[in-house]
């Protein structure tokens, strides 16, 4: 079974974002970029499935600028066998990303697609579900455990208030939550080897996908600074305010 795994290039989670002064977007010039943390977990899960003899090949796929090659190389240093970059400039909407994955999933006849549940830049949380809908396949989102058994996969999902386990027929789409695994570090020799692993470039046009705009970004602002409120003089006054004014207790 082949596994497709999604890799998105995003701002490093340690780096604070700053909104551009013209409010068109955030300023990413010369900031550290990295694999989206949830995608890194997806890569790790795929590699573990390969190590367990369940997957035959792990293919890392990214949709983004040519700079995303760096993150695909990292995925290959971690253990992905090869990579595909769907090259596209600027922000690519989740539905378009899902359409690209759907095409590649069909081309590669992948048995399982593992994606991060969301990226830490756009925070959309959509691609996995959209891909499942487009391919008419089942989905296991927010996974904290994945067990492949023959032609099905059991996915334990993190839901509000606990965990839910579901069973999906393969091919299926899984999206990762934080607790699924702890990604390994890349080894130096593997980083060198990854430079020679195959990385194919393609595009939406090559895949025969018409890119449509569904959501237009009008502006980006820094969140309004929180204002200090009032000082109260006693516990009684505090309780009264919380009850009557804020209505939170």
């Amino acid at each position: 079974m082949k596994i497709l795994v999604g890799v998105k290039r995003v701002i490093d989670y340690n780096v604070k974002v700053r909104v551009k002064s013209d409010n068109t977007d955030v300023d990413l010039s010369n900031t550290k970029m990295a694999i989206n943390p949830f995608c890194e977990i997806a890569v790790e899960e795929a590699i573990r499935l390969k190590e367990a003899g369940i997957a035959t090949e792990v293919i890392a796929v990214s949709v983004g600028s040519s700079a995303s090659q760096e993150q695909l190389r990292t995925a290959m240093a971690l253990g992905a066998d090869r990579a595909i970059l769907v090259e596209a400039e600027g922000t690519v909407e989740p539905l378009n990303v899902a359409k690209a994955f759907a095409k590649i999933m069909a081309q590669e006849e992948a048995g399982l697609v593992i994606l991060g549940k969301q990226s830490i830049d756009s925070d959309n949380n959509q691609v996995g579900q959209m891909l499942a809908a487009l391919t008419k396949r089942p989905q296991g989102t927010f996974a904290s455990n994945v067990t492949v058994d023959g032609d099905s996969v059991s996915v334990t999902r993190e839901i509000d208030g606990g965990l839910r386990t579901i069973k999906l027929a393969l091919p299926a789409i899984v999206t990762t939550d934080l607790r699924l695994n702890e990604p390994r570090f890349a080894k130096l020799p593997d980083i060198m080897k990854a430079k020679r692993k195959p990385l194919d470039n393609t595009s939406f046009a090559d895949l025969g996908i018409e890119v449509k705009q569904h959501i237009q970004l009008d502006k980006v602002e820094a969140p309004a600074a929180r204002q200090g409120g009032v000082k109260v003089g006693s516990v009684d006054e505090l309780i009264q305010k919380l009850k009557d004014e804020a209505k939170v207790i």
Partner: protein
Amino acid sequence: MRESMEFDVVIVGAGPSGLSTAIRLKQLNAELNICVLEKGSEVGAHILSGAVLEPRALNELFENWQDLGAPLNTPVTKDEVYVLKNGEVSKEIPHALVPNSMKNDGNYIVSVGNLSRWLAEQAEGLGVEIFPGFAAAEILYHEDGRVKGVATGDMGISASGEQLPTYMEGMELHATYTVFSEGCRGHLGKQLIQKFSLDTNADPQHYALGIKELWQIDPAKHQPGLVVHGAGWPLEDASGGFFLYHTDNNQVVAGLIVDLNYRNPWLSPYEEFQRLKHHPLFKQYLEGGERVSYGARAITKGGWNALPTMTMPGAMLVGCDAGTLNVAKIKGTHTAMKSGMLAAEAISQVLADDSLSLGKTFSDAFDQSWLKQELYSTRNFAPAMHKFGTVLGGAFNYLDQNILGGKMPITLHDTSLDHAQMQTVAQAKKIDYPKPDGKLSFDRLSSVFLSNTNHEEDQPCHLTLADDSIPTGSNLSQFAEPAQRYCPAGVYEIVEQASGPTFQINAQNCLHCKTCDIKDPAQNITWVTPEGTGGPNYPNM
């Protein structure tokens, strides 16, 4: 047995000197197998400098750097030098009276972080292997004592020293020659200087702490290319100087450099800088602006007199790891690059002809170079300031640099030790710093936030104490534990607990500036490498 990899040359640290070494080696012999280790998450992540760049070394490294897109975007258009009398008044020094070494015609305001990113691209284009996120933690030696290479640190070790599920053993990188370019007070360079007694014929090294902020300012106040330097207020108990450069994109960088031989234990370089920004000279530009980034880094500033021997069996020290900064020019990038290029030229010759000795090949080339000439001619600059103070020292330097062209037939030495200068709290006057206003001045943690620094929490503390009892013992009683104040990242705190005062080390905040390793009066703190990728993530610094 750890895994190992073999290279012709391993370079520790992807800053200007290390990358210049790598590039020059490849230019001289494309066949060489060269690897550069960098502890930061990416090249440039840990680089912090002023900076005004003199392009001399870059011209020699890449004649066509402009065509190659080197990030030298802001030529210096105007030089101003001030002495601040107090918190309100400043006096501009007429241009004619400024020591020539401090004039910047033909220089560029740059981000050395971005310059390093660009140098790394060029190096990779030439086939150099660069590995960011890997810290060289240990020096390896052959049985005969020659340097064999370095080992990267283990990853995935818990705070208590156990192997975590992600554990990955460090790797040995063996090389015919290893070049150490870790920057000021490199933790391996420090070991090498000791082991090979490289500083036997040198004065003690001297250091300063540089603190820098990047601001986005009102475009109406922005004068691209304006370079402002000066000294005076607010430093009373220390020597040092400030800078304010107008770079591109309506940004300015502001900073303060405080010499680490200061005496008063109450002094806080961080807070000196915060109050400096309230001076009208700074306020006129910064007011209404937004602070974008913050960082700090120690500076090796002993110059010629304190320069250790840079070669040893199997290895070299280059750049600020050795101490090639030209303090009279307040510039270290061009000299660091040149030192790396000279090292590369020597190593390349010695690799081609093993009858040559690295020590002699390098020192002959060094003696012929402009680098030696430049460092030698400015050898008296800092000692004069130390000996005679800012005013008389400044006059001496004017005479030396402008009239005599650095040929004053005497050499001044400063043989004191920076860490040994501190007075006790009983001797010193307490300094009350104003509270930050949240507009121009800020608390430490808000600043650290903007450095994007982080370290994996579950790992051994990388700030090690030789004696755990000193911080709450003699350091507390004699000096009110000065680490609380000299650390620009709030790493060190004395916390009052029921059991008495305890020494809290917030290693996660560390900016890798190395000040604690330098300034602790008991020399009790040793900075070692944390897990790779840990530390600041400076953009455009």
